[in-house]
């Protein structure tokens, strides 16, 4: 027989251990979030002081000359992302519709699997792919090659969100449309896609936020450019590549600009992420 006193103390120890472990998990959560606040804090304190009007309307100056900005890189990022969307959004939505309509067929499974694998691919590998497919035949780094790489990253993301969102559309809605004599293709586009549109748009915006922050696949495709260029067949600047180039440079002035660029980049990406989640009240999630 265990004496009551021992039983009570053992009970107490177990309870104490439980509370302690729960406190440890809370502490881990806190610790995990510390870098978020540190990074954002440094970005604001170092970036904001280097940010001025010139940053948004001027191109980079050569070493030694103070001033200059990243206007060309901001425009370049928008151009690259825009071109990637032009290809990535329709392809992603179309493929997503296919997956939603053939969820269990062998081909459907294979395509879903391929999308998942491509999604988990290191983005630098996709950069090499774009180099082999676009840069090599054209014999030049180009905005087109950069946009190609970004589109390849974007397509599986949009595909998988579209599939998930379309699956949520009630079957009755589709059946009602078909019963009214609406042809299948119109049912798909104006009933199913339309109903799932908020979710699909959320997925597209999150994919945009993701590719806007990509650096590695652009290094040897879009390459970066110190001058104004919007030509699709020539190297083009991008905010991420510019931040990278300036960050690893030995010049204090360029490093300051890198902080400013990083702040602008993070603001764009976080605005997209937070905006979308706020509008959809956190319901939507992009598969990873």
């Amino acid at each position, binding site marked *: 027989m265990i004496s009551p006193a021992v039983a009570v103390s053992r009970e107490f120890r177990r309870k104490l251990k439980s509370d302690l472990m729960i406190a440890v998990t809370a502490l881990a*959560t806190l610790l995990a*979030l510390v870098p978020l606040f540190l990074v954002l804090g440094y970005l604001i304190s170092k970036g904001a002081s280097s940010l001025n009007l010139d940053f948004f309307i001027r191109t980079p100056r050569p070493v030694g000359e103070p001033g200059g900005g990243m206007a060309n890189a901001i425009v370049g990022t928008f151009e690259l992302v825009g071109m990637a969307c032009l290809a990535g959004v329709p*392809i992603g939505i179309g493929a997503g519709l296919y997956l939603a309509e053939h969820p269990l067929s062998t081909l459907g499974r294979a395509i879903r699997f391929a999308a998942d694998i491509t999604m988990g691919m*290191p983005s630098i590998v996709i950069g090499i792919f774009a*180099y082999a497919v676009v840069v090599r035949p054209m014999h030049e780094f180009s905005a087109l090659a950069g946009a190609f790489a970004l589109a390849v990253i974007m397509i599986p993301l949009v595909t998988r969100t579209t599939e998930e969102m379309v699956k949520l559309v009630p079957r009755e809605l589709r059946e009602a449309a078909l019963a009214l004599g609406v042809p299948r*293709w119109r049912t798909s586009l104006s009933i199913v896609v339309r109903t799932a549109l908020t979710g699909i748009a959320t997925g597209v915006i999150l994919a945009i936020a993701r590719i806007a922050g990509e650096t590695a696949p652009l290094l*040897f495709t879009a390459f970066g450019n110190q001058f104004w260029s919007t030509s699709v067949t020539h190297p083009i600047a991008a905010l991420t590549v510019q931040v990278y180039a300036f960050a690893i440079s030995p010049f204090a002035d360029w490093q300051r600009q890198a902080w400013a660029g990083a702040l602008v980049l993070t603001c764009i990406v976080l605005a997209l992420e*937070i905006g979308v989640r706020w509008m959809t009240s*956190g319901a939507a999630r992009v598969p990873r």
Partner: protein
Amino acid sequence: MAEFFEATAGTAAVERRDARRRLGFGVRGFADRLFALATLGLGLLILSILFGLALALLFGSADSIQKFGLRFVVSTDWDPANDQYGALPFIYGTIVSSLIALLIAVPLSLGTALYLSETAPEWLSRRLGFLVELLAAIPSVVYGLWGIFVLGPWLRDHVEPVLGATLGFTPLFRGPRISVSMLCAGVLLAIMVLPYIASVCTDVFRAVPRTQREAALALGATRWEMVRTAVLPYGRSGIIGAIILGLGRALGETIAVAMVIGNRPEISASLFAPSATLASVIANEFAEATSTLYLSSLMELGLVLLAVGLLLNVAARVLVLSAKRGEGEGR
């Protein structure tokens, strides 16, 4: 009267058209088939992207594979000046930096996931989960910038002296201290993969059936004992899957690592020394590769990365999917 005839003629036309459509003829039947074909084509495009990716890398690295064969992955000699290429330093750097990352990130992510799924009230859990996702949203070049100017110097001045003093008897924590190092890359990677592991683990824990928890509690388990005896064992394969997923992220992370690891193609026992990873050397040298063999060797590094990524991804997805199968029964 004329109107009546027109109307019946119209009905007849509609009926004929419906019949044609049922049989798959006519403009609308054609449009349907065209649409089905188009979505099929776009789906196939995704398959061809993956195949194209693998083929492009395979053909791209043909020169290097022919010249070096298996020697490529065991040679430590990376010498572009003499056109000699060996991948071992990068493979070593990739593995070690990823292991450091997992060593730090896994316990923290497990703690975070447990707190979010077990302890935190709904409203707090949602907000904290959102912050964890933001951690994943920050572009990696921004982490790299922060790593160069803040994390690296801080580790050099405050962490490495302590590590050197307490664990300096091992070769891991010895040697000169500079702000770019394997350690810095590992810590930065830990921060970057943590949100992925944590969010998958949170999902896995939430998928543990309510009955499992209730059974443990009914037997008199404390909250922690419930977690240890019901939640963790049930989610084991999911946790392993999440860790493999995080490993895949860490292995392939490029730009942030390239900025803080120092990019020296040497194998050094010390974690304070600079190193290089598969991804970081591709990022650094690809655009400047002058000879065909050089470029081909860099592509072969990409091929290694692709093969490893493929393997890890498949394994992780299988494990996570099997763990989440009970989804919907949880809280």
